[in-house]
């Protein structure tokens, strides 16, 4: 790591020496690039129904995808999606491989070291769930147990007791797990839970729409207790490029989509309950 940093600093020094253009000149660089290419490259997950997934035709689909398309449309450019692994996105340093992340990312202190969060576009509740046969009846019952979640996610941070969300509603740590099983794949924990209570894990924490979806697909799981916390979900851009112009444009577009109810309609299109009613997650809790 030190070698890499050393090289980076020295190459920056050289750049600064050779070109009188300072770092500030980078502002607008990504936005200009988007405009010039007439294309907004959007990073999102392909394993995250109903937010983003690959449909039968091999195309990206879902709430995040619709939001991404709408942002591109309002910028007046085409949308293109790219689906790197979640940790590749959250670790920053995109090197302009893609321009924005519209992938339900929660702004946190640690992520904000490498990423900018120009606009929160919805909020989801996170909740615990257990196998239907589980004897655990309340959240306290999960203390000391083996809880499964997605690696590098806010839920994992919550389980670890170091969830450093920015601009988030207040919350408390309601469960102190004995073991945290962190899996890379979004839905792997659900599959493990399906095997039975206490087989691979004693419970999971995930976003409510996700759990909802699994229950509808016939998974033998149930919600446990109240929602653990609400997380704001934001568009992210690369801090390395620090393109204030791009960030401002995204903030403007999201605000516009909120005020003309586009976001609410998209939310209600994608987040349906079993009884057919819809959820508008775009207004805070």
């Amino acid at each position: 790591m030190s070698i890499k940093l050393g090289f980076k600093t020295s190459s920056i020094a050289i750049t600064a020496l050779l070109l009188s253009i300072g770092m500030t000149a980078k502002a607008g660089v990504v936005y200009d690039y988007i405009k010039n290419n007439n294309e907004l490259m959007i990073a999102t997950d392909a394993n995250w129904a109903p937010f983003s997934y690959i449909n039968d035709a091999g195309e990206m689909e879902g709430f995040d995808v619709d939001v991404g398309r709408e942002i591109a449309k309002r910028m007046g450019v085409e949308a293109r999606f790219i689906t790197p692994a979640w940790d590749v996105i959250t670790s920053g340093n995109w090197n302009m491989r893609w321009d924005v992340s519209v992938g339900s990312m929660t702004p946190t202190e640690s992520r904000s070291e490498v990423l900018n969060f120009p606009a929160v576009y919805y909020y989801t509740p996170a909740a615990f769930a257990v196998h239907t046969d589980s004897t655990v009846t309340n959240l306290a019952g999960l203390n000391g147990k083996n809880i499964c979640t997605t690696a590098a996610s806010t839920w994992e941070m919550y389980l670890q007791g170091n969830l450093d969300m920015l601009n988030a509603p207040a919350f408390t740590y309601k469960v102190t797990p004995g073991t945290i099983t962190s899996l890379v794949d979004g839905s792997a924990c659900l599959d493990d839970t399906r095997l039975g209570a206490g087989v691979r894990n004693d419970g999971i924490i995930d976003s409510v729409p996700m759990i909802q979806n699994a229950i509808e697909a016939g998974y033998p799981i149930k919600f446990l207790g109240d929602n653990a916390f609400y997380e704001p979900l934001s568009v992210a851009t690369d801090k390395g490029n620090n393109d204030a112009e791009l960030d401002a444009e995204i903030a403007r577009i999201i605000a516009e989509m909120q005020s003309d109810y586009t976001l609410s309609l998209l939310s209600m299109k994608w987040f349906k309950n079993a009884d057919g009613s819809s959820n508008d997650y775009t207004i805070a809790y």
Partner: protein
Amino acid sequence: MFVDTVVEDKALHKPAFLIGLSVTVLAIFFAFNFTNTIFGEFLSPVIGNPEESGLFGRFVVSFVLSVIFVLNLLAISFARLKIQILIVWFELFLLFLAFAYSFDLKLSFIQSRIGLMISKGLFTTIYISAVSIVIATAIAIVGAIAKLSNNGFAYAIASFYTSLFRGLPLLLQVYLIYKGLPQLGFMVDAIPSGIAALSLCYGAYMTEIFRAGIQSIPKGQWEASRALGFKSGLILRKIILPQSIPIIVPPTGNQFIAMLKDSSLVSVLGIWELMYLAKTLGQRDFRHMEMLLTAAMIYWGLTIILEMIQARIERKYQQKT
């Protein structure tokens, strides 16, 4: 192995072995308890309701199963070698299918997605592997020659390269190349990054294979060539490499087959290759097993094809020398 002309009695045809085998098989079937499976249902005329048949039912089921198992073995043992191989393959394949069937798969789901898996996933997998294999082979030839040369720079670079790229997990190399190259000013997209990682990693392994292949050629070949006044490059090209190919082909074929599957590691870069689609396509409908098993069959089929090609090439070179 080289077959002797005197044949020993088949173990299966020795009574002691047969009895020992039967008892062991019976014990295993008994231990695993197949009473509540389709076999129990099938035998319900004898044992009554499988659920209530108790130890008696369990014994009858395992007894019948072990008799079938041993009779099957005996029957196969009388067949000719080729037929034996065919039957055993077929039966093992049936068992595999039964395993897949036990997941309660939804075939219509597979049908609706398999087109995409092949047209997009398989195509990308083959494309990435094929390009990587070509580059890795080129790297390996250069690397092997460098490792065998007495040029200090060439040797040092080549041995550093093989040491580093054989010493790191492929997944780590994928990340390092994807995230690291842009730091050095080389912007590479996901697919070229993946291909670079695969080529460099397999190039390192294959360098060692090629080096060993070249070194296995007796030094008399070098001496005879030198005595005729051939220069090193000519000796390598016309005398040494052609002779090492038959030695290099089998392990290289194994590398190709391994690479085909390791190409799935580049899915972390968001490349929609076979494994990536297998993991994602089933997600919305929570039908992961369908997609994973489909991918398994595709990978397997592909490997069988590659094995056949490899056997062909090996046969061709065996005839030549």
